[in-house]
Structure formats: structure tokens, C-alpha cells
């Protein structure tokens, strides 16, 4: 009975969202009565949909295996936490969650935006019709409410063990929250274009929303990368897998978008760019959903393949993008600004930044789609590997950072005073040159790209230190959020460069009480234990590691065998210190009783996520401060 109620509530809310859309676009949306009406229908519809989700969560907690999806992805033996997160462990449920977040953003927007705002009703209309599109997709092609009747199975099939991890329970929600958060900016942009009144300042209103979604997206990607690092046992943080790339594209676009938003919310310059980017961010988020869920691209992350789903999503996204672009071209003349961008002004740097981001987005898109095109033309399967992305991303990011460096002191609509650049340049260049020389002689880093990255990463950080100094000593105005985020960028570049250059790994073959030596570290296998877990059996191997300074510590990597599917997973053991991670995984046991062990020294890897966190914090704080300063 509960299943049918949840199903019915979802259908009901789909209808209500559609009514909301109709009212907002076909009635006079300036009438306060209509705005109130639309706002109210939206909240009701949202609550109905939300209750449907909560009922579904309850079904999962209470092990209701008459629901096909729950029977396929949950299990009686799972802890409650994973029973809930099993909902988003596969296609149908994660789509459900995706729409929940989509409508939640709308609901929060609805709550915090006063009803006398011109664009409010239409923005809600855009959010509603997008939700309707996805709800129909959910209900028609991937229904999570499908039942197994009359006899439900006694136990479910369990979720994939590698997904039974606290971090993976929160990584998809964060990521989805980021993806769909841009619906606010998209909705406002469409509403603005539909209205066609250039005097409406929609950019100001969406800044904090966009920054918040950008932060969630950054957080989601960083969490995913961290999870992959410690759970999959490969020891890397980014693999240029197609599915990672489709998350990177909206992120790059969103980053360009929040930058050009800050310019166009000050003056009408760059307005066209901002509008285009707002459409692009949201479309790329949807495009990501299409790539992941259609199975069109072969990836380790992709969901089960179903051409029908792909076709629906493609048609829906295509329609959305076409309508948006049509509207855009129709209003193009209204948006033209006769103001010229002053050379070396902040706007000019942001335009340059847009071009760099555009190149990166284009290259990533090409890398994702090229295998498809190639197979279609030559009937030969190919894949585009990391070297391609490195060849593009490394130089472009570094060049962009040089421009970032010079943009730090630039002002809105004013040329930069070139003379004022010299003193800070001298100081920061001395600092970063010292670091490079140190890296070259002390750590014998000879790779030119690594040295260049060190130089540019550290020069940015040092430059911002000077900014902070001026802030405290001369009370010079500083956007502290920008300082934090860009220092994060500098740190990210340094960390990636050092990690890439200095990390190393080796496979060892070791018996109990034997000692192997790797890079002056003594590694001894002390003991093997069989330990039962809640829904798995595990073998734990105790290793004693002695570093060159004579300090010892134990690491206990693990191999688990899960009951439900008989799947074997490896749990890594990591010893984290300030500069490096010692990362241990165990492989198979050989016939002579020895074990294969993989040891990695991952240099500076924690700092990669730390710098991502700096960006997240900066984004959230700025979003918060902007939302408070709004009238």
C-alpha cells in the first residue's frame, strides 16, 4: 500500500509542477495574485514530492523487498545508514534523489525570494518544467516504484560493496546538489530573456545561488576523488575517466560563470557571456546525466545501459537547450552593450579567463566525444587517455594563472596602473624563484612542467600574502573570499605538480615475518587475522613499517569478502603525514604462502583535497555574505 501511495504522490506532484509552469508562463506574471498562486502551488507540489521520497526512504529502511529497486540494491544485513544510501546506489534511485534536489533548490528559492520580484514566478516556472521533464523520465523509463508481486524475495541483492562507504553515501548527494543548483541561475536567465527588459538586474540575484551550487559541485567532485583514492586502491585522485570529465565540464563552466557573474552584476559588460554561460552550465550538467545514464560511453562508473533512457534524456536536453538558445538569439539585440571593455581592467581579465576556460571545456568535450565519433567513422574503438588532457590542461592552466597574477590589483572599468606592479612582482618572484631553486637542488626535480607549476603556484600564493599584508597594515580593501579561493588554486597546482613528480609505487612479494625494504622504509608483515564484519568476512594483515628516522607504525590493509554477492574488495591502509601518504594494499596470496603487497608513497596528495576545500569554504562564505547584503 505504501508503495502505491509513494508512487501516486510522485505522479500528483508531476501534475502540479506542470500546472505551476502553465500558470507562470501563460498568465500575467506581474500580477501579485498570480505570483502568490504560483509560489503556493510550487511549495505544495514540492512537499507532496518530498513526502513521496520520505515514504520511499521508509520502504528502504523497513526492507520492503516488494519494491523491485530496493530488492535489487538493498539487503537485510546492511546497516540502516547503507539501507538509505542504497537508494542512490543505482540509476532509478539516484535519479529520484536528483529530482529531489532539483525541486529543493526551487523550494528554497521560493522561500527566500520575496513575492514582489518580477522574475520570481517565471523562474519557478522554468524550475517546474525542468522537474516535470525529469519526473516523466523517472516515472516512464526508470520507475523506482516498480514492484515484484505477488511474492517478494526474502532478501535483497545488496549494494555493491565498494559503495558501502560513508563517503560514497554523501558524495552523490553533494554532486547532484551542485549540478542541479544551477537551475536557479538558468531559470532566472530564461525568465529574464522571456521578459526581455534589459534593465532587470538578474545577475545580482543569482550570484549567491550560483556560488553555493559551485561550492557543492566542487565539494562533490573532491569527495568523489577522495573516495576513489582510498577505496579503489589505485592510489590516484583523478583518472580522466569519461564520467569524471562530464563532471569536470560543468565545473569549469560554472567557474567561468561565477567569475563573469561578478563582472556583469557590476555593469552590463559581459552580460551576453554570462547569459550564455548560465545556459551552458545547466545544459552541461544535464549532458552529464545523459552520458552517465545512457551507457553511450564505456566507463567504470556508468550505470546499466538502456538506449530508451538515453534517447529520452537526449531529446529533453536538446529541447531545453534549443528553446533557451532560440530565446537568446531572439533577445540578442537587447543585450548588446555599447560600453567598451577598458584594457587591463578587471573585466578584460575576466574575459581572458573565459577564453581559457572555454578552451578547457572544448577540449574536455572533444576528449569525451571523440571516441564516439571515431568509432562511428572508422568502426574502431579508441579511448582518449590522460596524456591528452595533461597536454591541454597543464599549459593552459599555467598561462591562465599568469594572467590571474596580474589581475589581482586590477579594478573594474579602469586600466591597471602598470607601475604599481613592479614592487609586488619583485617580492613574489624572489619568493617563488627560491622555491624552484630549492626544489631543483634539494629535491632534484628536473621536470620543466613541474618547476613551472611550482613557480606559478607559489608566486600566486605569495602575491595574495602581500594582499593580506596590505589589508592588515593599510586597511586596503580586499575580497577575502577571492584570496582564499585563489590561494587554494595556487596550492592545488603545487600539490598536483609535486604529487605527479615525486610519488612512487612498487609491488612486493612478502611472507609472514619477512622484511622488505623500499626507499629506506622497512616493511615487515607481522600477522594475518581473520575478522568477521557485519556483512562480510575479512582478512587483515598487520604490517610494521619503520621509516628512515627509526620511527615505527603499523598499517593494516584488509581484504573483504561480502556475503551477499561473494564479491571481494580491498581496503587500503594509509599512513598520512604532513607531506606524504604511505599507502598499502594487499593483493592475492600465492601458492607458496606469500602475499603480493602494493606500496605507494603519495607525496602531497592530502593537499590536493585541502586546496579544494579552501575553494569550497571561500565559495560558501561569499555566497553567504552576498545573500545577507542583498536588499
Amino acid at each position, binding site marked *: 500500500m505504501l508503495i502505491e501511495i509513494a508512487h501516486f504522490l510522485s505522479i500528483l506532484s508531476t501534475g502540479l509542477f506542470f500546472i505551476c509552469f502553465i500558470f507562470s508562463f501563460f498568465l500575467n506574471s506581474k500580477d501579485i495574485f498570480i505570483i502568490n498562486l504560483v509560489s503556493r502551488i510550487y511549495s505544495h507540489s514540492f512537499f507532496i514530492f518530498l513526502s513521496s521520497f520520505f515514504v520511499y526512504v521508509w520502504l528502504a529502511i523497513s526492507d520492503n523487498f516488494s519494491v523491485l529497486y530496493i530488492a535489487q540494491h538493498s539487503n537485510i544485513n546492511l546497516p540502516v545508514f547503507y539501507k538509505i544510501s542504497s537508494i542512490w546506489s543505482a540509476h532509478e534511485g539516484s535519479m529520484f534523489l536528483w529530482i529531489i534536489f532539483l525541486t529543493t533548490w526551487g523550494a528554497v528559492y521560493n522561500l527566500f525570494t520575496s513575492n514582489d520580484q518580477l522574475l520570481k514566478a517565471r523562474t519557478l516556472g522554468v524550475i517546474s518544467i525542468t522537474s516535470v521533464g525529469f519526473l516523466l523520465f523517472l516515472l516512464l523509463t526508470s520507475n523506482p516504484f516498480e514492484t515484484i508481486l505477488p511474492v517478494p524475495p526474502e532478501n535483497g541483492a545488496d549494494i*555493491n560493496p565498494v559503495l558501502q562507504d560513508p563517503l560514497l553515501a554523501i558524495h552523490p548527494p553533494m554532486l547532484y546538489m551542485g549540478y542541479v543548483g544551477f537551475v536557479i541561475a538558468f531559470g532566472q536567465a530564461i525568465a529574464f530573456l522571456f521578459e526581455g527588459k534589459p534593465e532587470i538586474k538578474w545577475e545580482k540575484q543569482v550570484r549567491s545561488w550560483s556560488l553555493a551550487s559551485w561550492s557543492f559541485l566542487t565539494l562533490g567532485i573532491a569527495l568523489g576523488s577522495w573516495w576513489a583514492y582510498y577505496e579503489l*586502491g589505485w592510489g590516484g585522485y583523478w583518472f580522466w575517466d569519461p564520467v569524471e570529465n562530464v563532471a569536470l565540464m560543468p565545473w569549469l563552466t560554472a567557474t567561468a560563470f561565477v567569475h563573469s557573474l561578478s563582472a556583469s552584476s557590476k555593469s552590463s559588460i559581459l552580460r551576453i557571456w554570462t547569459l550564455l554561460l548560465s545556459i551552458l552550465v545547466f545544459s552541461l550538467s544535464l549532458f552529464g546525466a545523459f552520458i552517465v545514464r545512457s551507457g553511450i560511453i564505456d566507463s567504470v562508473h556508468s550505470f546499466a545501459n538502456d538506449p530508451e533512457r538515453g534517447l529520452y534524456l537526449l531529446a529533453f536536453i536538446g529541447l531545453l537547450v534549443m528553446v533557451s538558445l532560440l530565446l537568446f538569439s531572439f533577445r540578442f539585440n537587447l543585450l548588446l552593450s555599447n560600453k567598451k571593455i577598458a584594457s587591463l581592467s578587471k573585466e578584460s581579465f575576466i574575459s581572458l579567463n573565459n577564453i581559457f576556460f572555454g578552451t578547457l571545456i572544448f577540449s574536455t568535450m572533444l576528449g569525451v566525444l571523440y571516441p564516439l565519433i571515431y568509432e562511428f567513422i572508422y568502426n574502431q574503438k579508441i579511448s582518449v587517455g590522460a596524456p591528452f588532457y595533461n597536454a591541454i590542461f597543464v599549459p593552459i592552466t599555467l598561462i591562465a594563472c599568469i594572467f590571474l597574477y596580474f589581475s589581482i590589483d586590477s579594478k573594474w572599468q579602469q586600466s591597471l596602473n602598470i607601475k604599481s606592479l613592479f614592487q609586488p612582482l619583485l617580492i613574489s618572484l624572489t619568493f617563488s624563484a627560491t622555491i624552484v631553486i630549492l626544489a631543483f637542488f634539494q629535491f632534484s626535480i628536473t621536470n620543466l612542467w613541474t618547476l613551472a607549476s611550482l613557480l606559478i603556484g607559489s608566486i600566486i600564493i605569495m602575491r595574495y600574502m602581500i594582499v593580506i599584508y596590505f589589508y592588515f597594515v593599510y586597511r586596503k580593501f580586499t575580497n577575502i573570499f577571492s584570496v582564499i579561493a585563489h590561494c587554494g588554486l595556487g596550492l592545488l597546482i603545487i600539490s598536483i605538480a609535486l604529487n605527479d613528480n615525486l610519488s612512487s609505487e612498487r609491488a612486493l612479494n612478502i611472507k609472514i615475518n619477512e622484511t622488505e625494504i623500499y626507499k629506506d622504509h622497512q616493511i615487515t608483515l607481522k600477522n594475518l587475522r581473520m575478522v568477521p564484519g557485519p556483512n562480510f568476512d575479512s582478512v587483515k594483515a598487520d604490517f610494521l613499517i619503520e621509516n628512515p628516522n627509526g620511527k615505527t607504525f603499523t598499517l593494516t590493509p584488509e581484504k573483504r569478502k561480502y556475503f551477499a554477492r561473494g564479491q571481494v574488495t580491498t581496503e587500503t591502509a594509509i599512513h598520512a603525514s604532513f607531506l606524504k601518504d604511505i599507502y598499502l594494499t594487499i593483493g592475492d596470496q600465492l601458492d607458496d604462502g606469500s602475499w603480493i603487497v602494493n606500496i605507494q608513497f603519495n607525496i602531497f596528495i592530502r593537499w590536493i583535497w585541502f586546496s579544494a576545500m579552501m575553494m569550497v569554504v571561500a565559495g560558501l562564505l561569499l555566497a553567504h555574505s552576498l545573500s545577507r547584503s542583498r536588499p
Partner: protein
Amino acid sequence: MKANRKQRLITVLLILATSATGSFLIIRALDSNLDFFFTPSEIFKEEIPNNKRIKVGGMVLEGSVLRDKTNISFVITDYQGSINVEFDGIVPDLFKEGSGVVVVGYLRDKTLVAEDVLAKHDENYMPPSIDIKN
């Protein structure tokens, strides 16, 4: 007016030239970094240079896995052709005889020297373009 037009023309030409050079560089980078995907039966029909990184997908042949310390060798097959693989390192957890793998590596004397051995997260995964006849 005329000067204005001329300036515009120059701007447009400049933009075109930069984007053309940019695209050219990107596509060149792309072309030199492609990994070709083969099945075991296709692999010896083609001329593949030693220095070309390739991917081979298929099933691990039952009884073909041999281990020596950290080295592992096995045969991957698509039931029409097969190729011997050598790898030094840890194979993924989902690696087992009779199930699907993708190997990335270089061809040396009819043997694939693996850089990486991949198995999917999903245990129901089949490498593309293989029909299992059983």
C-alpha cells in the same frame, strides 16, 4: 566608418586565426594520445607498432593464470582468438579466471606487456563486443 570596418575585419580575422591554431593544436594533441581498443581476435590482423599503447578486452581464459612473485601472466580470449598477457603488480579484486578484463599495454613479440589491468566496478560487466556462447 571605413576605418571602423577595417578594424572589425582585423578583429574577426585575428579571432579566426587564433581559434584555428588553437583547434589545430588541440586536435593534434588528441590524435597523438589515442589508445586503440582491440579484441584478441582482431589484434594480430593489424600491424601495431611496439610503441603504441593499446587496450585489449576479453575474458581471462580458465586455467591460464600463472604467478611468479609479483609477476602474473594469463591469456585473454574472445573465444575466437587469444593473446598472452604479462603484468607486474596487483590485479584488481574483480579479476578472476573466466571473467572480463581490459588490459592496457604494449605489444612485444605477440605478448601484451601490461601497464594496467582493469576490471569494472560492476560484476555484471562484459567487455564490449564479445558474445559469450554458453
